[in-house]
């Protein structure tokens, strides 16, 4: 129990939470755009894992930033199926989303299998070093907790600012909101619903792919089948928990990551508590937050509903 009184215990947990949150931040801000535009994208897990594999396979012979970008593009490619099937051909979004998740896991597993000889060398990248920020990194407790991170984390936080601005201060952001609330009304006012939804979905694919790439290049470095281990679905949890707000998604991702890290850490504090109980902590916290925020949560009204032009 005495560990709980030590500052380092908490700085390590906060730092761990931010590391675990990094892929979730990318994935959830992208998906927030899609859902705000009315597209329920359950293929997020698929975008993430295909982004993870692609980033590794590109970064291994070249450099990490190139792999990172490629991961995003791969996610976007998979999201193009969502555009084609759901937005253009009106197939059910939930069904297509599940299909794309299976497709992503299957495709990456298959590519990994046929490109790796048993006992041969797997593709691998070394993990990035921490970005040392002068002065800030040297602050006693905060430096360890908040400033010892790789550029993937910093970029994620930067993207939150940028996308937050896009969502609330640009025409595109307003259009996204309009087509997600009432596509018919938006169309009546001259918004090209299909175009806006397409862009939001592709964005979600791109950012989901970046999330997978950040996971791969930032903290794993080598592929295993289905190594995203449901993180795409956790990103969905984060989005709903954050009531479809970009900033909220970033905070929610961190909260989730923090409690996941706390669960790992508490294993050596409460030795007798089963691991399964500790691993339930982040989900339990999510339920509490969800319940508390339900009062002012507002789901995009057109979410999950395909838009069929009435012309």
């Amino acid at each position, binding site marked *: 129990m005495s560990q709980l009184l030590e500052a380092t215990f908490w700085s390590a947990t906060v730092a761990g939470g931010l590391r675990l949150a990094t892929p979730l931040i990318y994935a959830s801000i992208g998906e927030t755009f899609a859902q705000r535009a009315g597209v329920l994208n359950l293929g997020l897990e698929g975008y993430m894992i295909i982004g993870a594999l692609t980033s590794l396979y590109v970064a291994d012979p070249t450099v990490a930033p190139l792999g990172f970008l490629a991961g995003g593009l791969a996610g976007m490619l998979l999201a193009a199926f969502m555009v084609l099937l759901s937005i253009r051909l*009106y197939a*059910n979004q939930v069904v297509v989303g599940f299909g794309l998740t299976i497709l992503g896991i299957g495709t990456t597993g298959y590519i990994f299998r046929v490109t790796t000889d048993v006992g041969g060398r797997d593709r691998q990248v070394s993990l990035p070093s921490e970005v040392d920020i002068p002065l800030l990194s040297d602050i006693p407790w905060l430096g360890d907790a908040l400033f010892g991170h790789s550029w993937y984390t910093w970029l994620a936080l930067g993207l939150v600012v940028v996308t937050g601005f896009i969502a609330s201060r640009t025409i595109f952001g307003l259009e996204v909101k309009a087509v997600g609330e009432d596509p018919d009304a938006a169309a009546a006012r001259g918004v090209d619903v299909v175009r806006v939804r397409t862009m939001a979905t592709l964005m979600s694919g791109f950012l989901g792919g970046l999330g997978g790439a950040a996971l791969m290049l930032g903290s794993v470095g080598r592929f295993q089948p289905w190594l995203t281990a449901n993180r795409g679905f956790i990103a969905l949890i984060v989005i709903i928990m954050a009531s479809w707000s970009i900033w909220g998604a970033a905070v929610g991702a961190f909260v989730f990551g923090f409690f996941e890290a706390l669960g790992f850490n508490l294993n050596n504090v409460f030795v007798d508590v089963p691991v399964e109980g500790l691993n339930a902590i982040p989900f339990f916290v999510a339920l509490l937050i969800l319940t508390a925020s339900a009062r002012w949560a507002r789901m995009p009204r057109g979410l999950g509903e395909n838009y069929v032009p009435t012309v």
Partner: protein
Amino acid sequence: MTDVVAGGERGEIEHAPAGTEERSLTTSLSTSSLAVLIAVVVGGLIMLFSGENPLTAYGAMLDGAFGSRFALGETLSRAAPLAIVGYGTAVALRAGLITIGAQGQVVAGAIGALLTAQFFETAPSAVAIPAAAIGGALFGMAWVLIPAMLRAYFSVNEILSTLLFTEFAALLIEYLLNNPLKPPTAITPQSDPYPDNGILGLVIDGTRFHTGVFAAVIIGLAFIWWVRSDRGFSYDLYGENPNLAQSLGISSNRVIINSLLISGATAGLVGWIQAAGLLQRVYVGIASDIGFFGLVVAFLGGATAGGVLVAALLFGALQAGGLAMQSSEGIPASLSDIIQALLLLGFSIRYAPQIIRLTRGVMANFTLVGRKRR
């Protein structure tokens, strides 16, 4: 936008926007068969490219789904749980609720069935079997009770709360099978064998076609009755237009809680069927992906009795055939997944128009919740 048509055919949800239906149907009918065909061809090309023979592979798939008595038994025993979950989910969908927690409720149902069966270990089968079925259904209901209450009284989004409860179920079963429910000698999580007096017997020897499969028929008939009953109609009405339903005196909370409890009970029943019929032991992976695919089946089937049945059979066949493709043709599991996913995406187009109408109903309900709160 969403016109409620009184006196429309009760088996269907009728509130399609005028004009769009015609257009989307003609596109759909021509694109649907084409989409499946494209999926088959693309899958074939991928196999060809990977050095497999697509013809023998698809042959093995069909063979593994329909080609023998055993294969048909596999298709049926995989389709039955999907259909049951599909029907339960459809009841919620028709009332405007998306529950994606069936996966966790199946797990809870399996635990409930096992515990009940162990309690009645010495009772005659005529007692033990129905008791375990009820136990499974009750555990399934218990697992959705909190999300249902939260949705009814605090407007908590049920997509997320049921997903969270699926996580809780996964962790709970892992804990139980690693600790209290584990035989002392076992070093991996699994239960003792399911008690003999509670086992659902085989219908055809040498297959896995067990009597639990018939539960799907019973649930299917119950679903048809439900859809045609007055109460079922009022729930449909709520799903289509909650405003109107409430003005007609239909209680919002009752619809939400009851329809979610029904979906929980059916999923719990599936946990019982898998534990007492198919596997005769409880494993961590007892639910396979039944809960998730049951949702897909409900959507693909347009939440109608016939549609869910066909979609479940299609999926049962796809899964049985996908496995046979691996064992007979040496196709890796990941490639088989790719083929199955492509076919799923192909089929998704066929059903597009029905589902558009369905989701419109679901989302209209959310709209109300949103409005009410502001």
